[in-house]
């Protein structure tokens, strides 16, 4: 994508009918480190790769708890994500105050998407430079949603956004139909392995307690984040896969363990 004369303003269309500023904002999402979301009949899981600016710094926060039943992972501008999470938390709180009930995910995501859209139709604003993977559990069951700087939103059974997310999506595309029958443990393992796909191309990085965080929400489970030591049990699956790879064991595809 190269610069052209219709990309200064988000309120200017190009002759092809595109709003380039929104597409550039979507590029910002691709700069963020990868996050993966998966869902089965009763649970939804997020796996995130935490990046550090330097060894001296702590890792960038990728998972946000919005309410007991909703949480999200972000890719892109963290400051924009913080603003959105504050908005979502207020909406959930107000809904619970009036209706004594957890806010339905579809309505929450609709409001967030509308907020994104406003920023794409004002001269005085810029689009939000962050993509969200929102997971939650409501009356209709578990959900996984993706939002984009364009104001669009989609519901998924499995999705990944951020840097090298295409590798994770390829892994998930092969097995998303089996997810509904997975147990929670299997679901978490799929999320971890999908996330791992985004770093296998890089020789010196693998998922560890230092750079990986997991979040689960579901039928009998409030949104819970697992990181540092807590995530160790979920990373065990990587050992199994790694030893299979080292044995040159190609009889078993990587996604069966």
């Amino acid at each position, binding site marked *: 994508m190269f610069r052209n004369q219709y990309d200064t303003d988000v309120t200017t269309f190009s002759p092809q009918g595109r709003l380039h500023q929104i597409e550039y904002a979507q590029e910002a999402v691709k700069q963020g480190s990868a996050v993966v979301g998966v869902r089965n009949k009763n649970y939804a899981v997020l796996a995130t790769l935490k990046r550090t600016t330097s060894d001296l710094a702590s890792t960038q926060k990728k998972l946000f708890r919005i309410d007991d039943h909703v949480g999200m992972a972000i890719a892109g501008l963290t400051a924009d994500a913080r603003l959105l999470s504050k908005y979502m938390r207020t909406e959930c709180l107000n809904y619970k*105050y*009036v*209706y*004594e*009930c957890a806010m*339905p995910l*579809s*309505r929450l995501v609709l409001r967030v998407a509308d907020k994104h859209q406003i920023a794409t139709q004002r001269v005085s604003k810029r689009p939000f430079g962050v993509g969200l993977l929102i997971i939650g559990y*409501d*009356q209709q069951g578990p959900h996984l949603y993706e939002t984009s700087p364009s104001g669009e939103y989609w519901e998924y059974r499995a999705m990944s956004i951020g840097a090298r997310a295409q590798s994770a999506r390829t892994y998930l595309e092969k097995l998303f139909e089996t997810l509904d029958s997975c147990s929670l443990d299997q679901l978490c393992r799929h999320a971890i392995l999908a996330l791992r796909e985004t770093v296998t191309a890089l020789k010196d990085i693998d998922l560890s307690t230092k750079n990986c965080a997991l979040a689960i929400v579901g039928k009998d489970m409030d949104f819970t984040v697992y990181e540092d030591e807590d995530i160790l049990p979920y990373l065990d699956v990587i050992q199994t896969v790694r030893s299979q790879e080292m044995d040159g064991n190609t009889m078993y595809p990587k996604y069966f363990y």
Partner: protein
Amino acid sequence: MELHISSSATKAENFSSAQLFVDPTRHTTAPLVTGGSVVGIKCSDGVVIAADTLASYGSLARFQNFSRLMKVTDSCMLGGGGEVSDFQEIQRLLENLITKDFCFNDEHIQTPRSVHQYLGRVLYAQRSRLNPLWNSLLVGGYAASQSFLGVVDLYGTTFESEVLATGFGVLLGLPLLRKAYRPDLSINEGIKIVEDVFRVLFYRDARSINRIQVATATSAGVTISEPYSLETKWDFEGFVNPRSTYDESTW
């Protein structure tokens, strides 16, 4: 209850601009057309709510076939006493709420608990502006295989219980409801209990009539019956042959 129009309301000087700036905006100070008691009981397979069909104008039994029960959704029903115009406003608010749900076109429908909480918040907000919706409401419903029964009053106070009532129903009905309540009641037993309560209310509440409606919420949905009259007994010995005209305690 007095219903008089103050003579100052028609005097010319009360409409001068100076007067308008001095007098503050007035809000509801007393209800005019009122509904009476509402009574409800939870059963093992649903909820029963009942109300008589009278809207009183003070001591005048003005509207004798007025429905004080409303079907909110297939799983939720509402019974209201107090100021009728405010009850109609509440009906309008709830209809708008359900229409909004319909327009979202997702599978989410307000549960009886949500409706109860919503009404509590609306009534509390109004009372906090010193402009109350002068009502006592009973919200009942059956959703996700669970019965729900709650009450909201004009202050915005909310309660949830197995047996509830408003107005005279609290004084005369609740003791009867509490005695009769069992966790394994069927809907038909619940209706019988509630009919007995309204019989007592008709005997003793001077602002009631002998014509009630019953609403039930079960797994089959919400149904509101047609109004019907209760059988009452007036041939007590004390009524028929009072021993003395001066002795009021014969009955």
